[in-house]
């Protein structure tokens, strides 16, 4: 807790226009696909899905 720096590992979105930058970005066609992608990524990376509540999910390792 607080020992390692928190890091955004990936961003999943349905709205391409809202994200840019040096993070892996996954574009989903639907809300359902977004959730599924986020879940798979989080499970694989042992990380957690957070919701920015503007259509963007991002994955952070704590």
């Amino acid at each position: 807790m607080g020992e390692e720096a928190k890091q955004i590992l990936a961003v999943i979105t349905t709205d391409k226009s809202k994200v840019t930058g040096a993070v892996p970005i996954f574009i989903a066609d639907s809300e359902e696909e977004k959730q599924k992608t986020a879940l798979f990524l989080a499970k694989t990376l042992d990380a957690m899905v957070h919701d920015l509540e503007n259509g963007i999910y991002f994955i952070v390792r704590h």
Partner: protein
Amino acid sequence: MAVILAGTLAGILTRMLLLKLDYRQYPGYPHGYISHFSLGAIASALGAVAVPALMNKDFTAFTFLALAAQQFREIRNIERQTLENLEETRLEKRGKDYIEGIARTFEARNYLVMGTAFITSIAAVLAGIWGAAAMALILILFSKNFMTGKKIGDICEVIPAEVHFKNSLLCVNEVDIMSVGLPEMREKIKREALGVMIKPKDDNARATLHDMGQRMAITHTAALIMGSKKEVDIPEFTPLARKNPDTGEVALYIMPIEKDMTSLIMAVQRTPLLESASVKPLKTQAGRIASD
């Protein structure tokens, strides 16, 4: 000879009583038990032998006590290292404060044992075997009662709280805990999570709860007793204790295997109060003025 025997026996008895297995399961391993028991026996023998040596005006006996103290300090290091190594593979961390507290306790208990043996030996010299027995009884009771630390339940009130969501934000009563992204996780948490509020009884308690180490000890104890649904790939289920910045109350969120509010409250209440976290701002004038 009877003097030494009386002192040593009293010391060993103290160590055995203090070594009782408890929910921390430490030292729950038979080998840990044996090593602490033997060290306790050596400590009590040293304490007991010192008295006849001093009666023979053999004052160098005290040097041996110093030597023993050196050894006990080593125990503290060993305990700390062991616990820190075990910590790496734990899902709910004890936290450094808790580990330090346990290590310190192990060191201190050896001094306690040595002191018990020493004083009992003196009593045996001055008042015979019955005097020694009486003194040993008093000292053992003292060790048991005085050296048992306080618990969270002594300084705080623990009351049930509601786990709910503000959109994606997980909250326990009015305290925000964390953001949970996936809707299905939110549903599961809503169904299965438990929350309590830990309300400090005074400003001293508030300052103690401010300590992150103390809060980690609380989540660790709660998760240990209640079971926790956390897994390596499900960080959402990590038990968390977050402070209400305005009041100093702490909200605890946990995904227990056994969903039982009464036992969660009992688990939180029996969390040991860490020596390193325990502070007393009310003992200072400034602290008293600041509190209203």
